[in-house]
């Protein structure tokens, strides 16, 4: 071992000289690296361990690289628009409606996304939370509950464009509600339901049985127990599901193409042509596909 170490030092001698002008410390980087490599290749076992570590590290780099590229790209193009002071930049970008050509801002899209979220959340969240409470707290486990759970799981995996097509066929066409805020909001609500339902169910199942019993043993009705104790204890978990679902549908374009329409202003009515509403993802899509 001593012999080996000595010979390795000798072998690295010229490397040290090569970099001695720039590196003043006793151990130079190539020297340390060489020592490290020698250590890793000492036997077959350490070598295979080392190789695997490299493979893992490469995987991490490959994952991280596109992420940083996206951030860099968005920052490079976006920062001048967001912080600039020229026409259509800075506050004007967020605060004004789109003008002719590329002028104006995205106020229509911001307002539209907020409105769509309000509609979607106020329809989707209560429905799915109440449904989850029924199937976990009230219904006897059986075919009906597992059918609901299965359906929710399938719906969660359906591509969003299918939701868009359904929204168009059912709400816009069949119910004659036309495109706009209601059709778009309800379509997004449908998309939220599976996620919120399933996470609420999981959160409710995590609440220990003994908490419910404590409440019942005080003479509380089932509903009082569910509302005051079970849902309250499951609240953080329910919120996780809600935020997950809102975050997901907020970034959806496909369900809105056939249902929400688009506008350069804000919706002026609840139904009909005046209720057409813009949204951020749709606006991005429109800008990208626009030849200008």
């Amino acid at each position, binding site marked *: 071992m001593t012999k080996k170490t000595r010979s390795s030092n000798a072998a690295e001698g010229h490397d040290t000289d090569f970099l001695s002008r720039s590196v003043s410390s006793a151990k130079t980087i190539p020297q340390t690296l060489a020592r490290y490599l020698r250590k890793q290749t000492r036997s077959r076992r350490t070598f295979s361990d080392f190789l695997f570590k490299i493979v893992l590290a490469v995987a991490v780099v490959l994952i991280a690289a596109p992420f940083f590229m996206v951030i860099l790209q968005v920052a490079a193009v976006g920062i001048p628009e967001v912080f600039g002071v020229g026409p259509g930049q800075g506050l004007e970008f967020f605060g004004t409606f789109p003008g002719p050509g590329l002028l104006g801002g995205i106020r229509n899209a911001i307002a539209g996304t907020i409105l769509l979220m309000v509609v979607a959340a106020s329809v989707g969240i209560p429905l799915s939370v109440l449904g989850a409470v029924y199937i976990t707290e009230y219904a006897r486990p059986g075919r009906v509950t597992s059918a609901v759970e299965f359906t929710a799981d399938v719906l969660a995996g359906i591509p969003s464009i299918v939701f868009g097509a359904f929204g168009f066929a059912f709400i816009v066409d069949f119910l004659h509600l036309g495109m706009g805020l209601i059709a778009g909001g309800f379509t997004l609500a449908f998309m939220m339901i599976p996620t919120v339902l399933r996470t609420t169910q999981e959160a409710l199942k995590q609440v220990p049985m003994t908490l419910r019993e404590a409440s019942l043993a*005080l*003479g*509380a009705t089932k509903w*009082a127990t569910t509302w005051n104790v079970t849902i*309250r204890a499951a609240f953080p978990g329910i919120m996780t599901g809600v935020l997950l679902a809102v975050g997901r549908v907020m970034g959806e374009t496909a369900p809105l193409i056939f249902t929400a329409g688009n506008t350069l202003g804000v919706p002026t009515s609840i139904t009909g042509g005046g209720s057409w509403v813009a949204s951020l993802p749709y606006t991005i899509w429109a800008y990208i596909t626009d030849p200008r």
Partner: protein
Amino acid sequence: MSFEHKIEVKNLSTWFGKKKILKNISCYFEDNSVTAIMGPSGCGKSTFLRSLNRLNDTIGSFRMEGEILVEGEDIYSIDADVYELRKKVGMIFQRPNPFPMSVRENITYGPRLHGKKDDDELERLVEDSLKRAALWDEVKDSLDEPAPNLSGGQQQRLCIARALSIDPPVLLMDEPVSALDPLSAGKIEELIMKLKEEITVILVTHNVQQAFRVSDQAAFLYLGELVEFDKTRRIAEAPRDERTEAFITGRIG
């Protein structure tokens, strides 16, 4: 209304699905006394206790025969009010189960359910209940802290205070100290002795020494059968049945 015993159980048999848990049990519980229900694990102690406040009703496959009279009223009769029953018959569980709320809210939960809204009255109830559960001095400065932050022993006494907040004449305790350290267990035993001056306590335990220390009368359940039911001192000195003797000397259980 006059009645012979605080609680009287007549020929009680229970099933979960097809499995018979309790077999033809008859016994009674008096005011201002502690009754210990002893027996090895799985002998039906908890099922018996939970029959007394109809908590078994929440389990779909539960079925019972026989009669249970609380203050002379048949609690399983068709017009019995289960919520009124549970107001009268409080319960403490094996593991402390405070609600994920503040100490104060844990106590006011029951009274609010039953229509008490006056803040001063609720405030008084919080203090009274915590004092009765010997917890007031330890938590009077942290009434708005989350109850799950208390120690295990404090949590269990909080659960006792919570049960006492609606002033039940009967308190069921399902192995209330088995999840606690010896010091906390001792405090709760003391508390049980004090509580019996005012109410009826029915205590399920698999700890024979504890049963002998705190109870006035005792019942020994074995495989769903009520093997022996008598004054605790008599059972401790001279058990009539050999199974009881085997249990209290530690040969079964």
